[in-house]
């Protein structure tokens, strides 16, 4: 009996369909429902890694992996998890995935692992992961939960990388420092694309040390929220 039920469910709705609704799950978190600027979740472990672009990219990939797969697994188990202990079960799922990410990163790229230090572990308490599990995966089918997780991870990563680009470009004059595709844009030596020592046009330019401080990440996100809300009136806080 149970088997026929499962078959019926799968024939009614194919396991992996990708229509308009599914696309919305992926694109909605990028703007209208962005985890950082609208839902205000997951800021904790994010901002500290954004002083350079490369660690931000690595962090984003790690978060996308964790949000996607924790949503998938929670959704698969959603009918077996007792309501009272669901927090602990979710935390165990997330913690195991984060351990996998941590060990993989330690093996693949040790310098970046050192740079991210405790913030990889802090993906566990990243509210965006828990938030999506509670709000979406506990009530939806695996495939759609997976897409929702990936979508939210992408929305999070987009902000992270945007902040990283601004901070590194204006703070250090380079992009992707520490990675194979390092680009030196503007600076006082001949190595840089625009050499401020010899250039007549950019001779006045100096790197902005404020951008390297943690506070700069706050200002940049504040300004991003400002820009987004001036274009998207329905997000404006009325209270």
């Amino acid at each position, binding site marked *: 009996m149970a088997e026929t039920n499962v078959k019926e469910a799968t024939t009614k709705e194919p396991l992996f369909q990708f229509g308009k609704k599914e696309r919305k799950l992926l694109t909605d978190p990028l703007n209208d429902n962005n985890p950082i*600027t609208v839902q205000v979740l997951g800021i904790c*472990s994010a901002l500290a890694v954004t002083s350079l672009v490369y660690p931000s990219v690595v962090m984003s990939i790690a978060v996308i992996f964790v949000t996607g797969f924790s949503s998938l697994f929670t959704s698969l188990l959603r009918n077996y998890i007792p309501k009272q202990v669901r927090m602990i079960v979710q935390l165990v799922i997330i913690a195991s995935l984060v351990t996998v990410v941590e060990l993989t990163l330690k093996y693949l790229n040790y310098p970046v692992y050192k740079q991210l230090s*405790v913030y990889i572990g802090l993906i566990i308490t990243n509210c965006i992961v828990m938030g999506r599990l509670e709000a979406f995966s506990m009530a939806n089918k695996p495939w759609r939960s997976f897409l929702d997780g990936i979508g939210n991870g992408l929305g999070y990563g987009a902000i992270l990388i945007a902040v990283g680009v601004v901070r590194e470009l204006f703070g250090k004059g380079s992009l992707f420092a520490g990675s194979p595709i390092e680009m030196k844009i503007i600076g006082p030596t001949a190595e840089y694309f625009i050499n401020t020592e010899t250039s007549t046009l950019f001779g006045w330019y100096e790197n902005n040390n404020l951008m390297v401080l*943690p506070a700069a990440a706050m200002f940049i996100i504040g300004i991003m929220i*400002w820009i987004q809300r001036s274009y998207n009136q329905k997000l404006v806080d009325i209270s």
Partner: protein
Amino acid sequence: MGEFFNIFIKAAFIENLVLAYFLGMCSYLAVSKTVKTAFGLGLAVIFVLGITMPINWLIQEYLLSETGVFGTDLTFLRFILFIAVIASMVQLVEMVVEKFSPALYNALGIFLPLITVNCAILGGSLFMVSREYNFSESVAFGLGGGFGWFLAIIAIAAIREKIRYSNVPPALRGLGMAFILTGLMGIAFMSLLGIDPAAFGN
């Protein structure tokens, strides 16, 4: 004793968990609309951070490290164990407080469960491991970190209460302004870098 104060001052002011490491940012922004609620959450954080830090230190030292009971390196279990300790400690603290001090329970009430997913708690424990603190240092770090978090959330709540009467651009109201204010507070706290912790005895 000097070392204890040294770490306390450093954790509370110079390396403030919110303003220098962005830990506990979610609840910091969500619960800082009024000073009263901010006060409750701040107290709860000091409480839980002060308790979980020594417990996690004992777990790290006696269960997970190579010199511990099992004699092998079990550090890959660190995340799962730490978060389990934090979740169960929060639950336990909630029950004890409810039993013995209903007044405090009413004040902390809804904030206690929130603390499980407060990054400052897990972050504090992970910092403790990576900085190789000993037992008394980890107690000092827990209390100091909690106190710093408490100070930061009280300050931002007071500012947000006042700024409601100011003429902020509509798109910047609420969240946007809270971010910019936090940034400014971060810069203000940075000036405390000038404090020499050694002045408190060492």
